[in-house]
């Protein structure tokens, strides 16, 4: 059976991709960001997951507002990295595991989580900005990606609680996949930032720290916040942090933070965080009682 071995929360700022492509990894202004991904890359190299399930958002690249899905799962053996106005990026196409993607789609829909699917669409910085910082890709990616796009652009957005439930449903889907795969779930976006209107440039580090603490220790409180709460506390576009809650739902139960890096340089609090699920205590107790019998 497939199993989830960890979770990653990461910003997906497009400028990270630009800096990456320009080779700014050791530039003093950028090094604190790139260095923050090294422990995540090392963990992935050590644990060698077969697939990364990416809860990310499309920035009106794969989809336009004439048909903008609330939740959409990518089906395909490869996905081009999108041209978003500045030309193609020097990255190989993302690799996909068709059987796994289709199983997740079937499991979600049969579980009454009626997700849309897409094929043959390029994927933008929502997924492709942080990915190369964590996963080596020369000449090709070491594993496959299951892209799950969430609408965080055009209101009504799914609620924070609905995103958490999506994660729970994806966990059930993964754990019912009859192939012995190691899966890591990734939630992208945030943390605090606003990039439109006169309130552009808003940040709140105190809220960001509180979010990270609640995310690990009391995620249900985050699922009860409204979109307006997120916008007020973290800036309009930080509402996309509800995608971290999808990742948290897939890691349901206690988790342990392995690594965290926070770098608020210009407009977005660029953050990466790595988590491992903690075996619930009662399971240990059950094992002990079985052993005692």
């Amino acid at each position, binding site marked *: 059976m497939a199993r989830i071995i960890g979770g990653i929360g990461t910003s997906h700022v497009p400028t990270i991709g630009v800096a990456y492509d320009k080779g700014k990894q050791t530039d003093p202004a950028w090094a604190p960001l790139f260095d923050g991904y090294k422990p995540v890359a090392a963990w992935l190299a050590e644990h060698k997951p077969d697939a990364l399930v990416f809860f990310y958002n499309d920035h009106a690249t794969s989809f336009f507002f004439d048909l903008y899905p609330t939740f959409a799962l990518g089906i395909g053996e490869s996905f081009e990295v999108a041209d978003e*106005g500045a030309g193609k990026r020097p990255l190989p196409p993302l690799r996909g595991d068709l059987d796994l993607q289709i199983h997740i789609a079937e499991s979600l829909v049969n579980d009454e989580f009626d997700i849309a699917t897409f094929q043959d669409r390029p994927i933008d910085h929502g997924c492709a900005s942080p990915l190369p910082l964590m996963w080596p890709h020369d000449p090709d990616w070491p594993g496959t990606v299951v892209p799950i796009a969430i609408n965080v652009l055009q209101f009504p957005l799914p609620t924070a609680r609905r995103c958490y439930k999506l994660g729970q449903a994806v966990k059930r889907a993964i754990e019912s996949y009859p192939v012995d795969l190691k899966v890591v779930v990734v939630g992208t976006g945030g943390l605090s930032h606003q990039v439109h209107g*006169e309130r552009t440039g808003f940040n709140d580090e105190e809220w960001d720290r509180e979010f990270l603490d609640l995310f690990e220790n009391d995620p249900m409180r985050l699922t009860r916040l409204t979109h307006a709460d997120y*916008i007020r506390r973290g800036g309009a576009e930080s509402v996309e942090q509800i995608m971290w809650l999808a990742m948290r739902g897939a890691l349901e139960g206690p988790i342990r933070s392995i690594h965290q890096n926070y770098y608020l*340089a210009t407009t977005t609090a660029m953050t990466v965080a790595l988590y491992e699920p903690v075996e619930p205590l009662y399971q240990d107790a059950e094992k002990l009682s079985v052993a005692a019998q």
Partner: protein
Amino acid sequence: MNPQLEGIEDLAGTYVFDLRTSHRALKLNRFLWRMIGADAREDFLADEEAAMKKAGLSETEMALVFARDWLGLIKHGASFFVMEKFARVARQTNLEVYAIMRGETFDEFMATRRVPECR
């Protein structure tokens, strides 16, 4: 009113992009969105006015695009995320667009940032 957005109207300098806005400004947003295609970029750069007329933009919208009036476009109903695709064609970085939306010069805006060299 969407209950998830209750209280948002009290937040100055923030413009909700919901289905009402999206429906009203669909042509403008589609025009901005198309800038992810090399053909649309070439058409626009060859003849701005012809490209905008072909896309069905109103006089007001054409004036906003001509002026690269980023805040005006947002207030009119543009989604930032398609507007930034047009900003690439207009040869402006997101940081430059942010400064303009705040009503500041680029240097003034960057002076408010923790690591102004991070660009």
